[in-house]
């Protein structure tokens, strides 16, 4: 079971520094402290950039103003999104969502299929480890040659990049079902489908989610990467390269901040979903007493 331990260790649970049941007042105080520190640091950043006056490092206030006028000063009925935002942010998110959904689905299905048999897993292990080890950006050229520039190439690239971590983690989760549970299944004469649905899938879920979390941040990275290449016509990455060629550093910073915020929000959303789905698992893991 060494391999199982490895993959588990590769995706540590999200680090939560707050103890699970901190008293409310202490928690609030800590949150207030954090926001205060953040505010102070932002002020420091503002002061430092204004004092330096470097073209490379615009003040945070300038970045925020720029973000607002570039993307969020549109009409209210369109949720304040401007044309630029509709043209660039939405396609990026759409591509990422479609690529993530496709890659995650394929990874889970294939991972379950591979993980169900120790023999199949052994045969495919080497090839899969190799495919996972290839850095996705190295493959972008392959997809460019096959599909040419455009949406198809970007989607295929994102799907292909994220399918491996999901597949390997799911397979590993499916493999590490407690033998006792499977024997119990046999005793109760559960059908194949029941066994898969009620025993194997639930016990693979925690590792599956670890793989999906890796895939989520990876999909953001490869989405931006695919848009940085020449030949793209829209997207957040495209806007970054455009700002690069026009030497517009404030717009570039704005793009980076936007991507950071998006990454943060997506991760939070994912954690909420994970907590829901894995509520029973967390409860089972909680130490007694």
């Amino acid at each position, binding site marked *: *079971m060494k391999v*199982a*331990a*490895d993959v588990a*260790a*590769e995706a*540590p649970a999200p*680090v939560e*520094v707050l103890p699970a049941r901190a008293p409310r007042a202490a928690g609030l105080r800590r949150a207030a402290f954090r926001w205060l*520190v*953040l505010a102070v640091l932002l002020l420091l950043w503002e002061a430092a950039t204004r004092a330096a006056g470097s073209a*490379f490092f615009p003040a945070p206030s300038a970045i925020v103003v720029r973000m607002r006028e570039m993307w969020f000063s549109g009409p209210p009925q369109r949720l304040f999104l401007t044309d630029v935002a509709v043209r660039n942010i939405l396609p990026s998110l759409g591509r990422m969502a479609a690529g993530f959904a496709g890659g995650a689905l394929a990874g889970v299905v294939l991972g379950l299929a591979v993980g*169900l048999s*120790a*023999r199949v897993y*052994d*045969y*495919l*292990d*080497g*090839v899969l480890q*190799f495919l996972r*080890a*290839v*850095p*996705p*950006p*190295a493959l972008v*050229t*392959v997809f460019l*040659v*096959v599909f040419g520039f455009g949406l198809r190439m970007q989607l295929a690239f994102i799907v292909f990049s994220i399918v491996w971590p999901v597949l390997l983690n799911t397979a590993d989760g499916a*493999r*590490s079902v407690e*033998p006792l549970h*499977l024997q119990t*299944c*046999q005793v109760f004469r559960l*059908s*194949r489908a029941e*066994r898969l649905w009620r025993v194997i899938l639930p016990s693979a879920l925690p590792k599956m989610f670890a793989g999906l979390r890796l895939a989520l*941040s990876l999909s*953001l*990275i490869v989405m931006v990467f695919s848009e*940085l*290449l020449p030949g793209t016509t829209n997207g*957040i990455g495209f806007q970054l*390269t455009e*700002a*690069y060629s026009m030497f517009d*550093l404030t717009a*570039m*910073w704005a793009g*980076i901040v936007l*991507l950071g*915020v*998006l*990454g943060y929000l*997506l*991760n939070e959303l994912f954690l909420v979903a994970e907590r829901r789905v894995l509520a029973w698992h967390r409860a089972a893991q909680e130490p007694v007493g």
Partner: protein
Amino acid sequence: MSASALAPARPAGTTTRWSRRAAGALAFAALIELVSRTGLADREFLPPATEIAARMGTLALDPAFRAHALTSLLAWAAGLGLATAAAVPLGLLLGSVPVVDAATRSVVEFLRPIPSVALIPLVALVIGTGLQLRISLVVYAALWPILYNTMYGLRGVDPLAKESLRSYGFGPLPVLLRVSLPSAAPFISTGVRLAAGVALILTVSTEIVAGRGEGVGVFIYFAGLAVPARMTDILAGVCWVGLFGVAVNALLVAFERRAFRWHHARLEERT
């Protein structure tokens, strides 16, 4: 049939597993060969496996490609090394002093989700497109897994061990170095292994986007720009990068097994 497919997995012996892995890899290569030679896939898009392997061989002997590989390797290693040197002390500090952690947490939470490839254009403008560009981006990206794993590892330290050392009159630093660091070491090393993969991604990404000078990414990118595209070159380059990734990972796993035998033993007990 249903019983055998879903029966409890009985782990095969190491030799069996290795021979199965090799057989699987050979079958995969044979499949590519077949698909390409029968014309099922366009040969221009998927050259036969034997041709890719042969090209890998000639590339290994080609001084120009070796220079590319050496440059990439240098950026990768320097970035990973610097990231480790910075992230471990930082992680120890953040993980053992709650006030510092609380103060920096919001900053870390906002910096970490920034996809590092988005920084390529900005850093290229600020410091130029030389080797420093690659190294600084690799450092940025590789920092997070190591930092997080160090902090994560520190939280699992046995409080009793710390308390008993403290009660013998040891100060905070000796406790950190004698108890916390060894106990967190397996996690740190897992973080470094993860970071090694991330560093490889960033090295190649930067080379492809900045597309100048030497590097395996540059080689792959220009092979794709050629008309017609040199697919055999691309795939041979990709395979070298992938093999490098597998080798580094295997080396680090082997190191972890030897150095932290006690840790793995504990994990195995649990499963």
